[in-house]
């Protein structure tokens, strides 16, 4: 059993609280510190927040909003920057799989939302990660019509390629790469997504278009650029290596000079 001080970001950008007053943290947001006692070391970080929220509720305060769902590290909904690290201090772990045994008794834990221009705060610790969806909508798929496929074993894929594609495909879209990057860059996310399809034979016909479109969308969303710091790789709960960024750089270079159709649809793509 341990006690903690939780210093947490509160913000109500809509500016609506109960009775029409200002919500917790106000429109601009600020940190609030709460004390929480008798926390079992076998509880997960989110379960600790659940208890804190119950406590806030009992005190007639508004509970802290945070995203979560599967609580087994696969849906990518949970986020949070805990003591300066996305998904907390343990490596290869999502916040929902982070346990309180890793935090010292009586310590202060600082909890912040993922910070990026492309991930605006919705409320408290909840951020809008729909920029990732829009990047995927721009081209993160193979455009096969339902019913058009040939027998699954007509396309042979070398085990190595399948494995490499798989490693990229383990991305859960949580956004920790963006949160960890000093530039709030989404390169690891985009690289994992383009590589997954680009490494497979099925993904070849649309490869250059896909690469160019997704990179363009990434730029339009206002993510930063890659400085090869590899903080993304270190923060990734699924350990996706930054070598996929090299793959994306190469694919982008080749695509830029071989693709004749792709045209920037938006004037903004020259400036951002």
């Amino acid at each position: 059993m341990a006690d903690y001080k939780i210093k947490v970001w509160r913000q109500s950008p809509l500016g609506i609280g109960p009775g029409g007053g200002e919500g917790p943290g106000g429109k601009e947001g600020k940190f609030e510190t709460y004390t929480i006692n008798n926390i079992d070391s076998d509880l997960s970080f989110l379960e600790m927040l659940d208890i804190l929220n119950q406590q806030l509720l009992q005190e007639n305060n508004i509970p802290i909003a945070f995203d979560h769902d599967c609580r087994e590290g696969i849906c990518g909904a949970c986020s949070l920057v805990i003591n300066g690290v996305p998904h907390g201090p343990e490596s290869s772990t999502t916040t929902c799989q982070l346990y309180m045994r890793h935090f010292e008794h009586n310590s202060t834990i600082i909890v912040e939302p993922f910070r990026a221009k492309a991930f605006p705060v919705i409320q408290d610790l909840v951020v809008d990660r729909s920029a990732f969806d829009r990047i995927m909508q721009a081209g993160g798929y193979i455009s096969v019509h339902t019913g058009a496929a040939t027998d699954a074993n007509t396309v042979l894929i070398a085990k190595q390629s399948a494995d490499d594609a798989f490693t990229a495909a383990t991305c859960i879209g949580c956004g920790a790469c963006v949160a960890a990057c000093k530039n709030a860059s989404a390169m690891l996310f985009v690289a994992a997504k383009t590589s997954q399809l680009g490494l497979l034979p099925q993904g070849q016909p649309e490869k250059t278009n896909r690469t160019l479109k997704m990179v363009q969308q990434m730029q339009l969303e206002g993510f930063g650029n890659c400085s090869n710091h590899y903080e993304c790789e270190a923060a990734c709960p699924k350990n996706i290596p930054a070598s996929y960024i090299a793959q994306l750089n190469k694919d982008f270079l080749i695509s830029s000079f071989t693709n004749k159709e792709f045209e920037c649809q938006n004037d903004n793509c020259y400036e951002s």
Partner: protein
Amino acid sequence: MKHLSQFIFSPIGSKIIMALAGTMIFLFLIGHVLGNLLIFNGSDSLNTYAHWLQNNPLLWVFRLTMLGLLSLHIFIALRLYIQNKYARPISYQVDKDIQLGFSEKTMIVSGLLIFIFIIFHIGHLTLGWLPTTSLAIDNNIKMVNVYENIVNGFQVSWVALFYIVSMLIIGLHLHHSLKSLFQTLGFHNHNLHWLVYRLTPIMIAVLVLAFISIPAAVLMGWIQ
């Protein structure tokens, strides 16, 4: 043309161009240090070499190319830097580096310091801003006495120290740049990666030490 500008202003294209420009400058540095080392062969060697350079018909083509590459490198770096700052308008209360190195973190600072050094360096030895530099033709050797300019210059200890510190900063800048180069250009072969990570520190150390050896030798009185 449209495709090219799309490429240049894209986040990845910018980086590739910056990396290529940086690589050219790095290759120039290798040539530069090899020329400089002639100083240890005595004044005649260095002065003859310098004379050949200064009277080379391609001198201005070369100078303008280097200036262009440098400007491009700096322009893109600043543009990316501003974009990157803009991408995170609110910073973290606690921003812990998970595995970020010193060289990586200080690229923009080291880059700006190197820029200041370059201006000083050109001012010092090419434009003769310091009293220790004489651009007049030396009557004895019938050309500018570059050797003497260098020796006189580095005998002023703050100048020598400034050069030495600047070389270390260049080393710091290169440390991240060279490791980054292959990543940016899209090579991520495992063996190459292994080689690059082990060879670049050695390469940089040799280069920086070679540069430093000159002001150091002057300071120590080994070259007079």
